[in-house]
Structures are given as structure tokens and as C-alpha cells.
């Protein structure tokens, strides 16, 4: 699945170097996974996209880092939006069936200081 920069919307293929080193257009280190289908829909119809201003984006990034307990601001973070969606600062939608799933941990700490917050799983207990 492609990674999309939260700050400037640049899209990178899974495993791209930019996800580790920072977005090449805005230097951001906060990405989220987006499915090919969803990306296609958004590119075709802009109204499908959630409108966020720069302040909101920065706030959401700092909130996510705090919620996941990632203190190093230089560590890249990739968010899987399937379990915790943040539509605006202070507005959260939680998929608790996914959160309850025991199959995977909440936050992966990968090598090179990359974090992956993956709270989703296809094998839910509930």
C-alpha cells in the first residue's frame, strides 16, 4: 500500500526511502497508509478528501506522537488509519474491534527509528 505524507499529500510507494528520511517535498516525517483504491478515488474527486489546514496537520501529528508515546520528533511515523481516525484535532474515531484484536501490537518500533502504528488486524476476536 502507498504511504501518503500528511503535510503535503505527496505519495510514496511502500518501502520508499523517503518514508525513513523524510518527505522530499516538505521534509515531513508523518505518513499514513492509503489503499490504492482510496487514493484513486481521492485523486479523481477532491471532495472525498478531509480538509485540514497546516496548523491542524501539525497538531494531529503531535497528538499522534503523544498518544503512541513517540518522543523523538525526528522518527518517521506511519499511521494506519483503520483503527484510530483523527478527522480534526480533538475529534477521534476509534475502531474498538480492531483495538481489541490481540494479533498485533499497537506500535511497532522498526529499525532506523521508524515507527509504525498499526492497530488494525483482519482477524478480530469480536
Amino acid at each position, binding site marked *: 500500500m502507498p504511504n501518503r505524507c500528511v503535510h503535503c499529500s505527496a505519495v510514496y510507494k511502500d518501502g520508499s526511502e523517503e518514508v525513513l528520511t523524510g518527505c522530499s517535498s516538505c521534509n515531513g516525517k508523518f505518513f499514513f497508509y492509503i489503499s490504492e483504491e482510496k487514493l484513486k478515488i481521492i485523486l479523481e474527486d477532491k471532495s472525498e478528501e478531509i480538509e485540514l489546514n497546516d496548523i491542524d496537520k501539525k497538531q494531529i501529528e503531535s*497528538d499522534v506522537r503523544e*498518544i503512541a508515546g513517540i518522543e523523538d520528533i525526528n522518527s518517521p511515523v506511519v499511521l494506519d488509519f483503520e483503527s484510530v481516525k483523527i478527522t480534526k484535532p480533538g475529534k477521534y474515531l*476509534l475502531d*474498538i474491534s480492531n483495538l481489541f484484536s490481540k494479533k498485533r501490537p499497537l506500535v511497532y518500533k522498526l529499525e532506523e527509528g521508524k515507527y509504525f502504528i498499526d492497530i488494525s488486524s483482519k482477524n478480530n*476476536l469480536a
Partner: protein
Amino acid sequence: MLKILKDLSRKVIRSLFGPKKNIKIGFYGPPNAGKTSLANLLCQDWTGEDIGTVSEMPHETRGVSFKEKVEIKHKGKNLTFKFVDTPGIATRIDYEDFLKFKINKKDAKKRAKEATQGIIEAIKWLDDMEAVIVVLDSSENPYSQVNITIIGNLMARKIPVLLVANKIDLKKSNIKKVQAAFPEYEVIGISAKNRLNIDEFYDSLFKLAKKV
């Protein structure tokens, strides 16, 4: 097979060394159902201290809190518990919902963030629980996604459960509806705020401890 052996060895050890000390019991449920009110009542009765603060505003408890070694004597029996109070589990947290309680926008957003963090933490802690008291508001519809997900997961993890239908002092309270929604479990109706049916609750708590 391994689980059967584990259970068996636990039973043998129990019979040799007497009852288990410090039974870990978690209080889980949706926000504002009265988890902390009930946990406070128990802690006040036996330790003289609260476990946390309560409020009319949802998501007052935003971190997991503990009370160790709560020794309860009931009808000639004596058990020691570790109580774990958890934040209310919700599917949607919106800071705007807090604004009507007259807090400012900044604090409301902070509360929403902490509540989200608290829910993730509460769910992480579930694996450490030996038994769970699910506290529901008996004046609300029991068939909510939150209730069904929590109870379904506890069942899947084979964690013993006691269902508490709180707020029976309210006119809209309907214990029968809670019982009908979750027929597999014992439901005890109480009012933590008005101390109604608490003796019966202690009966149920000791019954729950036996299942650990």
C-alpha cells in the same frame, strides 16, 4: 491441552496453599457508566481512600489507576483484591461534546486526546486481568457497539465477568433489558451513587473471585 494442564496445576496449588492473594480485577465499560464510582465505593469501604475522581463530564478517568491489596471481609470470608480502574471505552471522542460542560476549547481537545490514549491503554491492560467487572448504565440501551465488543472480547479471552447494571435509582433504569442482552452472564443491579444493593454486589464479587 496446555491450558487444561495450566488450569489443573493452578487448582492443585490453590488447594495446597489456600486462596489466591491479590486477585486482579479490572473495571471496564463505556464512559460515564460509573466504573470509578463503584471502584471508589469499594476502596472507601475497605481502605478509606478513593481510586480516582468522578465527574458528570464523560472521560473523567483518562488513565488506568490501581488500588493494591484491598482486603474485603464478607459473610465470614476474606479475600484480597487489586482493583484496576480504566477509562471508558468509546468509538467516537469529539472535543465539542465537552464544550457544553463549560471547559475551553484547548482543554476539551486535550481531554479528547488523553481519552483516546486512555482507551488504547485500557485495552492493552485487559490481558493482565484475572476477572473483569463490566459496569453499564442500566438507563441506557445495552445493545451498543462498545458493550457488545467489550463483552464479546472478554468471552473470547475466557476472562470471568460480572456484569453490573449501575444507576438503578434512575427512572429509566431497566435491568431486565441488560439481562436479556447478555444472558450468558450474571447481572447485578446497583446504584453506586446511592449505595443500593451493595451487599448483593459483594456476594456476586466473591462468586466472581471463585471463578479465577
